[in-house]
């Protein structure tokens, strides 16, 4: 019998030409269906409001307002994904935001100039306040995480207790009065014309972003080739690259179409001896700091979730807690870290909220937990555990905020907004459940 190894190589016949369905083509790009669907949904929502408002909705200023309003929720939702994936919940996030925001305000208006003797011109005073606030968020998260992971009290109970007790504690800071007047540098975190990175920096971000996307695609392809894994077809790579780069430059373009208000620009011009041209001086504001913060946090958290062992262990525990234990993973420390992480994220969101308000009131952060959980769930995170993505949650936050902002814009009052938000939530979860039933 002929040894097959010695047989002359035969021409490998090309597979018969099939009519490849659209679905197959999309699968080849390896795009996450759900994320893509959400992007489409967001676009549709924005278009609907544009028509409803008589054509005034889709303006750069409005889009940036929307983005800034969503930023606090979006930041926290990245951490909530990990908490829910590992079969827990954190109901205290709104209260942590509140107490940290009040801490920033009290530090900068009272404790620092008074007790600590740091006057207004103390170098980086705002940064120190920010650091202390983040430390507080971390500490609260660690405490709750410890009770949940090591003492074994269910997270629902612990964080519900946290929600109540921390919200109550805020009252003692100022007997309920609003505290205002933060450091100017700190206020920039809240956005606005001066709280944006400016035109040039925004283009730089676009360049860096495009370069990063291309580098990632290239690196991925190189890895696959190295191990002999199947490659994406070139047209798919090109498509992904184009879409990514287009998105990044589109974002930068929108941000730079947002200009400083006339009065502010003229004051700046006079102060810097710049002649004011006909029609006014157009200074592009660029990306607001809150949006930059969201982007940075989302990238960092995605990296942690997919590229770090900690992230892998969070998902493994969510998928099968016993398997994680038997694999030798320190599951308790992993769980505790998820709560510490979300504590820090709450502190960041608290900084954004306090900076936007230039102060703090008793009710900052109230009901955040509902919006954060909604964002994560709309973004595809499942309460069964083990499933959920961070980009999905960030998108979810923007989708929910787009709806809220849009309804407010066209004049639907807040009860109506709540009704719609609830329906959207149910639809999103229902869609997931239906999809899973189909076995995809």
């Amino acid at each position: 019998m002929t040894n097959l190894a010695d047989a002359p190589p035969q021409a490998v016949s090309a597979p018969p030409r099939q009519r490849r369905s659209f679905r197959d083509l999309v699968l080849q790009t390896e795009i996450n269906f759900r994320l893509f669907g959400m992007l489409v949904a967001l676009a549709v929502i924005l278009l609907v409001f544009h028509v409803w408002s008589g054509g005034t909705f889709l303006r750069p200023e409005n889009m940036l307002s929307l983005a800034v309003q969503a930023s606090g929720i979006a930041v926290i939702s990245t951490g909530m994904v990990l908490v829910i994936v590992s079969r827990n919940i954190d109901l205290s996030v709104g209260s942590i935001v509140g107490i940290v925001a009040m801490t920033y305000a009290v530090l900068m208006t009272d404790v620092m100039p008074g007790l600590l003797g740091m006057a207004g011109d103390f170098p980086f005073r705002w940064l120190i306040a920010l650091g202390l606030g983040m430390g507080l968020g971390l500490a609260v998260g660690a405490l709750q995480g410890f009770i949940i992971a090591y003492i074994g009290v269910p997270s629902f109970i612990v964080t519900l207790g946290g929600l109540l007790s921390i919200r109550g504690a805020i009252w003692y800071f100022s007997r309920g009065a609003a505290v205002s007047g933060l450091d100017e540098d700190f206020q920039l975190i809240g956005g606005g014309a001066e709280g944006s990175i400016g035109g040039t920096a925004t283009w730089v971000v676009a360049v860096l972003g495009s370069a990063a996307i291309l580098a990632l695609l290239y690196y991925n392809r190189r890895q696959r080739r190295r191990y002999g894994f199947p490659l994406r077809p070139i047209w798919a790579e090109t498509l992904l690259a184009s879409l990514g780069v287009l998105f990044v430059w589109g974002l930068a373009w929108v941000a730079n179409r947002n200009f400083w208000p006339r009065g502010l620009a003229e004051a700046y011009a006079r102060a810097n001896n710049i002649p004011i041209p006909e029609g006014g001086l157009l200074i592009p504001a660029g990306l607001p700091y809150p949006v930059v913060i969201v982007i940075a946090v989302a990238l960092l958290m995605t990296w942690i979730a997919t590229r770090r062992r900690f992230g892998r262990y969070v998902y493994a525990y969510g998928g099968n807690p016993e398997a994680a234990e038997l694999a030798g993973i320190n599951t308790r420390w992993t769980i505790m870290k998820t709560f510490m992480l979300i504590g820090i994220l709450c502190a960041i969101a608290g900084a954004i909220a306090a900076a936007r308000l230039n102060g703090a009131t008793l009710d900052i952060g109230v009901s955040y937990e509902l919006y954060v959980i909604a964002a994560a769930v709309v973004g595809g995170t499942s309460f069964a555990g083990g499933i959920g993505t961070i980009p999905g949650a960030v998108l979810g936050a923007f989708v929910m905020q787009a709806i809220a902002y849009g309804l407010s814009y066209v004049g639907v009052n807040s009860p109506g907004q709540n009704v719609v938000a609830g329906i959207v939530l149910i639809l999103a979860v229902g869609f997931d459940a239906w999809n899973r039933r189909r076995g995809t």
Partner: protein
Amino acid sequence: MAVAEPASTPASAAVAHPAPLVEMRNINVSYGGVRAVIDLSIDLSAGEVVGLVGGNGAGKSTLMKALSGAHPADSGEIRINGQPQTITNPRIAKGLGIETIYQTLALADNIDAPGNVFLGREVTTPLGTIDDSAMEDATRKIMKRVNPHFTGFKKPVVSLSGGQRQAVAIARAIHFNARVLIMDEPTAALGPAETAQVREQIKQLKNEGVGIFLISHDIHDVYDISDRISVMFHGELVGTLDKHACTTDDVLAMIIMGKRPEQLSRQELAELRG
């Protein structure tokens, strides 16, 4: 109780009378007041398969969990290659070369095959990040040995068939150069073709000098693959028989009655024979 002499093994596999790979002495395990394993001693040599059988609640899985670190023993001694060891968690067991394929497989459903194979022992890049490509590559290589027809390296394991999931569990166990392998009901959920495959793998591992504890409720399976058979009854070891020195009926009798065949009264024998 006398332990039967092992039948002559292939010369390439083991030196005559080496120190046993695993020695478990006077193991006691209690679960909340119930004594699941009572003063049990058992050995395993390199290149040998010891079948562990018994009825439900006999304590087989519990005994193995003491060895694998999933549920440490309350008292007793475990020696690996003659050295006493304290096995308090799965990590330590794995460090000693003890790998387990659990009855439930202990796979994380939402993670793909390479992720599961390397769970807890991920390959990292110099930066400390997970190297998914390297892990996928290594998994593909092992899988050629375990199940050459395996595809679906990128799918979450929940969408794989029972046999494929079993293959992932086996791949995980053998990739890390196990010296001792604990297999808890490896063929329970498998069809005939896949069962044959698993038997092949076990034979291969035997030849490589791996010692295997095999828990199974299928007497014929155990009989075919094992060298010795240990029977447990309500947490105690009834006896260990050399496969060649007993019949399946003898084994069945031990499982059901909890006594060695020679200890059975005439009446009990009659009951057994029906």
